[in-house]
């Protein structure tokens, strides 16, 4: 990476109704900017400003020769494969603009194996001191979104963690399709249950919808500070959306390094 000639563009979904949707993406951008790894670090969003179309006009300095585009998305899917390339006018993994600047399209953050580590770390952090062999881990995803592979990615993560044999059980659950997160107590046997939302940002799903389905009476951002919740005879630990973890900034940087290795390999 050349800090004086490389720039980073982080792409988020954003929202026209949820003020928290773009917060993690902006935080990761600010964090990476502070590390001085890139000449410039910017965000762009599908549903917020600046738009993906605006982003085509960023990085005007002649000194910037390459722009890394990293989708802050939990999985490959409709947005990473159709919307982002179309709106940014990317022709493939590497696009050369009229001014000679190279735009390198990286894989979404969710594809990086560090995500598995972060899921594990988060599980241990929100339930400190409890015995993993007496604990079930549930990774919850939405499940029915158009062309979205987040359910597949969530399954892959559960498999990887299960293979480590640390927890009594590791499973997937969904909001709108079986196995339903509402049945969390039937999906698990252990006395302790950890639930981690497999989303890029907090919002209505993680503040309200999932807590309701879990049977947590209070909703809102404070619920993450009230672990464990004693419900249905179990100790339930409920985590924030995985994408709010500040270490996602490391993943974003990693994705640029991985893309560079790929595009410069041959």
């Amino acid at each position, binding site marked *: 990476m050349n800090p004086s000639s490389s720039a980073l563009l982080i792409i988020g979904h954003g929202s*026209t109704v949820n003020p928290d949707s773009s917060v993690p993406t902006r935080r990761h951008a600010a964090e990476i900017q502070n590390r001085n790894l890139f000449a410039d670090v910017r965000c762009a969003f599908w549903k917020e*400003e600046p738009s993906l*179309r*605006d982003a085509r*006009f960023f990085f*005007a300095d002649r000194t910037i020769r390459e722009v890394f585009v990293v989708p802050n998305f939990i999985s490959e899917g409709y947005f990473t494969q159709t919307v982002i390339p179309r709106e940014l006018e990317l022709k493939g993994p590497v696009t050369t603009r009229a001014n000679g600047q190279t735009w390198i399209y990286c894989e979404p953050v969710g594809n990086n194996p560090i995500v598995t580590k972060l899921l594990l770390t988060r599980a241990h952090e929100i339930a400190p001191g409890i015995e993993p062999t007496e604990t079930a881990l549930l990774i919850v995803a939405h499940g029915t979104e158009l062309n979205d592979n987040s359910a597949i990615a969530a399954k892959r993560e559960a498999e990887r963690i299960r293979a480590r044999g640390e927890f009594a059980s590791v499973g997937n659950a969904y909001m709108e399709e079986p196995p339903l997160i509402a049945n969390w107590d039937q999906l698990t046997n252990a006395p302790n249950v950890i639930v981690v939302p497999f989303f890029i940002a907090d919002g209505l799903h993680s503040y309200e919808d999932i807590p309701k389905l879990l049977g947590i009476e209070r909703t809102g951002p404070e619920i993450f500070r009230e672990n464990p919740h004693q419900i249905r005879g179990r100790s339930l630990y409920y985590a924030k959306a995985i994408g709010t973890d500040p270490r996602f900034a490391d993943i974003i940087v990693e994705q640029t390094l991985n893309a560079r290795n790929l595009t410069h390999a041959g």
Partner: protein
Amino acid sequence: MKEPERLLESLVTGKISRIGQLEISLSENGFILCHREDVGRIDLQQCQVDDAVEIAKFDDKDRYRPLKTAPTLRRGWKIFANNSEEASRAIDAIYPGRLAVLHTFKGGRLSTTSLRETLNRQSGMYRVAAKISDEQVDALVGNFCRSDGGCLRTILWKRDERKTVPSAKLPPEKFDPAADQMGKGETCIPLLCQEACNLLVAACRDMVKMEGAASSAP
């Protein structure tokens, strides 16, 4: 210094110090930003450059602002910026992307995209938006993008490749980068709209859907 910062510096030293609802003034050691209607007030809350994102997020009634160029910027604050880099960062948080687009425009390299082209490009749930009629576009854009209550950007895009104006309901000033969209006739840095935003595309879709629902009703 990055290009848009250089541009900002030259504009502000040339005394063009308004952008949208923002007033930017030169102080001894930097820049002061506040709401245009708060100029001269002494009871403004002192804020940091990093607070700008939050300032832009909610209006005076604490409602979320999905469109940052809507004329609903909250009042009662001022931000001190040490240099043009910090000032640009604050402006970019309040009006995201606008300085970069302006810089491209000033350099004669800004390409605009007609509304029909934007709509025809959509996929998924937005594909249906392309079915909107020209008459509906005229009415919708005339209301949705209007500077008094809708959006403070100057529209540079056309309705279609025939270069039709987006809406006959909007005054000529809406398409003039030299005009003050706040209607005060002051010299301003324009907030440019080079292509219909996602909110307008969504509104086109809603209009098509609504008509579909109305015509299939018994």
